[in-house]
């Protein structure tokens, strides 16, 4: 090739490379394109970015939390509603009457219409409750609602629910049960609820579109519609916020990314979640059937350091299964303090001063490997050897949850009000304390919430004193909203995400 041609080609290549570098450099740093500084626009359409896509549209069909985030309170409503502060408010149950023995709840219903046009009747409520606790249901809160004995339709607007025993949490638990149209049939491909939004488009793997329900019986939403856009890859989700493709991210799990959002002018919203990270023992088998050994392990772990390394100073330390958002919360974070000397002393008392070895079954992925490695190094300092066995989520349900074939395991529990699992000796961790069982069942049968709170607090204190599990920490609920977007629910109580209050400023 003649040298002139060669020179031209080389120059062209160099110029292109330089241009690319300049473009990347000068425009780098991003900055949200959406959101202005004007007054909120009531017609604004929002895009919510999430990585928690529902695996199915019907809560009875699958127990994942994704559908709660999209549908509960937005498309479907329950008899009651749980607010962002974890209080119970009436919703479709206009009035509630409870019999003296606490076994019959009579509800009169709001004048509401389903999205298909049919009016809400008591028959729909009966249908919804029956299918929620039915044989084929795998709904996430089925266990709590199996206290229902049967449901009677009194008249078109009145329904009576008969319970097997008193249940003071009954109205709270009803906040998660959707009231669906009994004539709608199969709900895996469509919806028929009474909520402020209707679903107008469903693309699995991509998005769910909600449009405002013009015939909604309650308060009008403050925006003009919402699209939930799903990203399986967290980087893609973050990029979407930076480029303005989404207006809010419902759950940010990487605190290192927060600085770039702040730099772009986005708002970081930090609320509490009910997501607890645990090192759970099998309390049935040696050495963890000895409370001294459990407490020794608890005190050997510097949980603050672990929380800081994973969540960068956010989140909270907890000393039991109860997070601060629950009425029976006690600050027990230092009940089993980080104290390696105490740990060694307890091990000595338990006859384990020479140390011992055990295996922890850690589910694959993310935070579990970090936790496992950290705990291993901490325990080594008190002479305890921990072997890490990595398993799949599937294997966890078989080996640990069903077969109880383990010594210790790492797990994350997202449900709210789940201290009740410590009242079930057949639950996977096998904690069996007769007092705790008594207090928890009495609490559920209590006639006032004060009584309930007092009893559960006793149980709360006991499981902490017994170090039934090691409660490593409570995860924060990190949400990020673009500039000009307000009204985003702060707390992530069991993945609830009400969108009707979110507003976006006119750009």
């Amino acid at each position, binding site marked *: 090739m003649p040298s002139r041609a060669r020179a031209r080609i080389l120059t062209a290549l160099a110029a292109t490379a330089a241009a*690319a570098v300049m473009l990347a450099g000068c425009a780098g740093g991003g900055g949200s394109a959406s959101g202005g500084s004007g007054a909120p626009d009531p017609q604004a359409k929002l895009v919510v970015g999430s990585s928690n896509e529902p695996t199915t549209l019907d809560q009875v069909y699958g127990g994942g939390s994704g559908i709660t985030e999209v549908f509960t309170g937005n498309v479907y409503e329950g008899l009651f509603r749980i607010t962002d502060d974890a209080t119970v408010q009436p919703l479709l149950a206009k009035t509630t009457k409870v019999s003296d023995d606490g076994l019959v709840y009579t509800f009169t219903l709001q004048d509401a219409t389903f999205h298909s046009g049919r009016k809400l009747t008591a028959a729909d409520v009966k249908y919804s409750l029956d299918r929620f606790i039915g044989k084929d249901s*795998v709904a996430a809160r089925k266990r709590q609602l199996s206290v229902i004995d049967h449901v009677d339709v009194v008249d078109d607007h009145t329904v009576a629910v008969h319970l097997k025993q008193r249940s003071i949490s009954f109205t709270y638990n009803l906040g998660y049960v959707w009231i669906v149209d009994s004539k709608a049939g199969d709900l895996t*491909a469509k919806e028929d609820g009474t909520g402020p939004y209707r679903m107008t488009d469903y693309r699995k793997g991509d998005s769910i579109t909600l449009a405002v329900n013009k015939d909604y019986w309650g308060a009008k939403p403050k925006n003009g519609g919402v699209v939930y856009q799903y990203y399986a890859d967290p980087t893609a989700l973050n990029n979407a916020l930076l480029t303005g493709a989404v207006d809010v991210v419902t759950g940010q799990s990487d605190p290192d990314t927060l600085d770039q959002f702040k730099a772009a002018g986005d708002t970081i919203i930090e609320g509490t979640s009910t997501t607890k990270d645990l090192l759970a023992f099998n309390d049935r088998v040696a050495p963890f059937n000895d409370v001294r050994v459990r407490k020794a392990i608890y005190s050997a772990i510097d949980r603050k350091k672990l929380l800081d390394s994973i969540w960068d100073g956010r989140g909270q330390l907890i000393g039991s299964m109860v997070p601060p958002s629950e009425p029976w919360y006690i600050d027990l974070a230092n009940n089993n303090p980080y104290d390696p000397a105490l740990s060694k002393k307890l091990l000595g008392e338990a006859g384990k001063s020479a140390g011992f070895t055990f295996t922890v079954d850690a589910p694959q992925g993310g935070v579990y490997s970090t936790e496992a490695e950290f705990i291993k190094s901490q325990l080594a300092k008190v002479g305890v050897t921990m072997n890490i066995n990595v398993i799949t989520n599937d294997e966890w349900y078989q080996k640990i949850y069903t077969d109880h074939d383990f010594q210790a395991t790492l797990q994350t529990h997202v449900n709210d009000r789940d201290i009740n699992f410590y009242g079930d000796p057949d639950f996977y961790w096998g904690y069996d304390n007769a007092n705790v069982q008594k207090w928890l069942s009495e609490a559920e049968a209590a006639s006032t919430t004060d009584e309930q709170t007092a009893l559960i607090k006793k149980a709360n204190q006991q499981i902490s004193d017994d170090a039934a599990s090691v409660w490593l920490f409570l995860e924060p609920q990190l949400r990020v909203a673009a500039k000009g977007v307000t009204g985003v629910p702060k707390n992530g109580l069991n993945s609830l995400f009400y969108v009707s209050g979110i507003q976006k400023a006119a750009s």
Partner: protein
Amino acid sequence: MLLLAFVLAATILFVVLRVLGNPVYSLISVGATKEDIAAAAARLGVDRPLIVQFGDYLRQLVTLDLGNSFTSGLPVGPEIVRRLNVTLPLTLLSFALSMVIAIPVGFFAAWKSRTWYGTAFSAVSQVTGAIPVFWVGIILVFVLALGARIFPASGFPRTDWSDPGAALYALTLPVLTIAIVAGSELARYVRSATLDVLGQQYMRAARATGQSFGSALRRHGVRNGIVPVISILAIQLSTTFVGAVIVERVFALPGLGDMLLSGIVEQDFPSVQGVLLFSTALVLLLGFVADVIQRILDPRLRASLSGNRRVRAAA
């Protein structure tokens, strides 16, 4: 023959999936009782003996019924068709672009193989072919989407192909990503095929009869050189299709690859089976088509099939 290969693949798939896990555990959550788990297993049909499940599976295949997803309950067949909306254009465009990149680059590298710039082309294509495809994707997003804001960082428009401009705009970076990596690999094949052709006696013979280099190449070189490249192309098309799995994740495209990944994570056997059987059928079909094209182009291959004495004599 094709059918046998397909059935064999389908059987292996069935066995591997069922040995790997229990799909019920993706449906339930902590709090489920033993009765709930048993009821869910019965509903999905996974508590029956394997031989019975396999019988059902084969029967469904024969009627082209891919069943319903274990997790969403929705039929798998229509879901695959909907996802093809994204994956098919992505694959075809990437494939086309990779050829546009590979053929000139490979040819140039071969033609000028004894010069430093020809070697440079070859070296660069080796490097770009070795880079993991998701890394290329991330770099392109960083430079062209986050940095220069020319293209979207992710997503596929909800308006689908009713707005072809928007759809193509969304597919630009993903197509570029796959094309760069696949094109580099293809370039190496083109280069070696071209080198092979350039060294052949018939090229020298053609030049000796007075043909120009270009004419000799077109009339003799390409026709001979293209035959091995066609079988590579068929493999490339299949690879691009399967490689779309990773790219769809990075760019949040709701395609077949994403369906496969989600299905695996959720232990959704019907979805995984559906996508893999479809891909298997496609790969087998493409291989067959490539075979046919090769026989059309090269009479020497035809002879072994038809045993036509006249053709043999002419070649």
